[in-house]
């Protein structure tokens, strides 16, 4: 069986300016994918191309086994059976909630349409709100209406463009989880665009990191965090620092503060260990573990209290700065030295860029 969505070396742009180049991406039926990247990276352009709003410069897009976009041919959006949730929701201000949700069901009879509208409103937790006007709803409710409207025609693929960015941070997290559950329950295939990592981690089966028009990595959230494909992904996702080090022949790494074993965990296939020589090693806050018994110590430069934990900025031997996330009852003063240990179960190293 073919994938629900497949992008093959897709390039996009306007006139002479290429925004996205040679992008490959596959989404299986029932999966939730997420394109994550800084603003201006082209992620919304990709979404609009999948929806049929942007023609391709090169490549091909397949939806449920059919080619919907290729050079010189763009199936119009209205013929694609895609649903889209917009950043500003784009609810029709002249239609009530019922009219909005039923907009895509115009081929059905009135009674059948009303039944479906009621059903989808119940699914998104707005049962009985048919007669309300969009402007009478809160942002979160408008979001739900937009979702119901996009899902009602039962599209092959749901596209969400920064769907939670206009909401309060607290509401954003809870709604993101709720929407993810709902989509999984209904077996919907969805692609989300966001610049919020929390949102991406909360919702997606696969995350794609887009930067400067290129897909840097397309992998499950765990791999994105722990096995970043390149220094950009490593820096963009999560917290951490890159430390100049030296890869030794047998696989251990010589760090400025000491030698670290390469680790027991095997690297994924797409992460070949860099050859011996100068490398950069990613140190996540969870790689630097506070241990009073450790012979190694580091000096506390800064601390940020985060409730359950404290994020320490430490200066290790050799002048290296690193972050450490420590349970907050380990409260140390700035300037004091604390014992640390480098978690050695996996080391993420990149060949150092030639000077």
């Amino acid at each position: 069986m073919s994938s629900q969505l497949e992008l093959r070396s897709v390039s996009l742009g306007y006139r002479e300016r290429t925004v996205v180049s040679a992008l490959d991406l596959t989404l299986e039926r029932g999966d939730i994918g997420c394109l994550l990247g800084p603003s201006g990276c082209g992620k919304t352009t990709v979404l609009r191309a999948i929806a049929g709003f942007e023609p391709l410069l090169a490549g091909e897009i397949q939806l449920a086994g059919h080619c919907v976009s290729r050079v010189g041919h763009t199936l119009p959006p209205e013929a694609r059976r895609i649903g889209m949730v917009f950043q500003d929701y784009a609810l029709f201000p002249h239609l009530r909630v019922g009219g909005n949700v039923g907009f895509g069901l115009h081929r059905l009879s009135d009674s059948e349409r009303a039944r479906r509208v009621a059903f989808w409103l119940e699914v998104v937790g707005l049962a009985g709100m048919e007669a309300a006007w969009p402007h009478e709803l809160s942002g979160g409710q408008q979001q739900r209406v937009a979702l119901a409207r996009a899902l009602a025609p039962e599209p092959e693929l749901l596209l969400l463009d920064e769907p939670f960015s206009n909401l309060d941070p607290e509401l954003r997290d809870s709604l993101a989880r709720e929407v993810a559950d709902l989509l999984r329950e209904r077996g919907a295939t969805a692609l989300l665009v966001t610049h919020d990592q929390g949102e991406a981690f909360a919702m997606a089966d696969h995350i794609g990191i887009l930067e400067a028009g290129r897909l840097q990595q397309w992998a499950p959230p765990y791999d994105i965090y722990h096995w970043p494909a390149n220094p950009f992904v490593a820096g963009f996702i999560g917290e951490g620092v890159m430390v100049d080090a030296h890869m030794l022949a047998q696989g251990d790494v010589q760090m400025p503060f000491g030698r670290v074993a390469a680790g027991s965990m095997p690297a994924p296939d797409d992460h070949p260990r860099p050859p011996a020589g100068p490398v950069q090693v990613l140190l996540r806050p969870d790689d630097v573990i506070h241990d009073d018994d450790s012979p190694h110590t580091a000096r506390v430069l800064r601390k940020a209290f985060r409730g359950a934990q404290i994020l320490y900025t430490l200066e290790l031997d050799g002048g290296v700065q690193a972050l450490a996330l420590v349970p907050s009852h380990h409260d140390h003063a700035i300037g004091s030295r604390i014992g640390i240990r480098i978690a050695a179960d996996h080391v993420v190293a990149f060949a150092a860029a030639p000077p």
Partner: protein
Amino acid sequence: MPGIAEPQPGALLTPDVSRGASGERRQGLWQVLALFIAALVVAPLVVLLTRIGDADPELLQHLQDHVLPQVTGNTVLLLTLVVVGTGALGTGLAWLVSRYRFPGRDLFSWALLLPMALPAYVLAFVAVGLLDFAGPLQTALRGVLGADVRLPPVRSTAGAALVLTLCLYPYVYLLCRNAFDGQGQRAMEAARSLGLTRRQAFWRVALPMSRPWLAAGLLLVVMETLADFGTVSVFNVDTFTTAIYKSWFGLFSLGTAAQLASLLLLIGFVIAVTEHRLRDRAGYWSSGRSRASEGERLSGLRAGLASGACLSVLLPAFVVPLAQLLAWAWPSSAGIDTTSLQAALRTLGLGTAAAVLVVGTALLLAYARRESPGRVTRLATRVATLGYAIPGAVLAVGVFVALGLADRLLPAITGIDWRIGGTLVAILFAYVARFLAVGSGPVEAGMSRIGHSLDDAARSLGANSRRRLLRVHLPLLAPSLLTAAALVLVDVMKEMPITLMTRPFGWDTLAVRIFELTSEGQWEAAALPSLALVATGLLPLILLDRQTRAAMPTPAREPAVKAIAT
């Protein structure tokens, strides 16, 4: 590792001939349409400008010696008086209403706009009728004080300036009130906290902050004063507009009229450019939404003075003239003559036809700007809506000359004998050129509310272009289209110089009836058609009032429409 290969410059420049070809062709078509409309509207003005050079030297001498000095002097004096008058009245009343609470303040807040419903030429003849030597006021004064009592002559430049001031101050008042309200209390509080008295804060903070609005309001006043024809003809003050009319219909010299018109046109261009710049700049001055001022509560004498000030403007500008019109019209209302009835029907018909044409054209322009948002289309729209700065008398001459040219050229080219000059087509064309800006404003505003994401949403829900137009665009645009149509309808019904000069022979409208009756001093007979115009003139005020209310900060009226540009 897919995706992290070095960027390949070759791939970035993949040639693609077919990409978006249909989209770009459609954009091109819209651009051509916008340019065509602009060319059509601007044609009469261009034809007029070409007439500057080829003047009869004898006529030119006559113009320079006898007409221009007097006309220029009158116009400059009139402009100065009206600008000073409307500036003082407009800002003063706006400040009073915006910053203080006093008895009747809420009523005055919108009632002070009522004089807009009164065409200036109606107030003019009411003033002359009331204050002239034979009028009731002077007769009464003579009765009390003796036969030698004289008021200064009403039919003077000062009299015309007073009437225009009372009619036009609402422009300044409205814009300044919006500016003062928009500033909120914050700026004034900041000024007071820095040690300024209330009076100092007005002169050094509030007034400078509202400068763009004040300037925009005064510019509208200048435009209207330059364009005024009816008032100055009632007062027998010769300005450019009346000189154009007299040269054409008195001396039967279209050449002289065109000469004068092209001069006035140049002034109009300067004003239009200035106005656009001011409007662009005004955007930088608005500092977002801030807390509206509650206003200081006045009491006792000061409250009485505030109410009295508002009343002392509203009485002569609206209440007294309206009462006088009613008094004049009452006896004659029993027998409405068929001429007036016919004129009323014609006015309504003409206004409706013009409104439909203007709104249709404005809609096309708005779609052109939406579908092809480039510099060319923007420029075309600006040029097409230039007519509002061009006095009606000028446009009338321009349209007449341009259509005369077309009537000579077109039959020769097409082989069909047709004439547009002197038909209803000519007058409607002139109306569209003059009032396209009036209709374009609301239509553009309505269009800007339909974010592109609404279109995208409709498409993603399977709606084709027809369904998008019928189910999304038209329902959303309908209120704006109606507003635009109403505004144009009212403006056309009140319009005097274009109607007078380009109407088909004997085709009288209400405004023309009023002009003819008042030029013979028949105030009573002119009262009823005037009342009809005042009644229709109230319509845009009601719309304006509703608009201001709708613009009040209501939470989340529409989801913020952000451009989709990640």
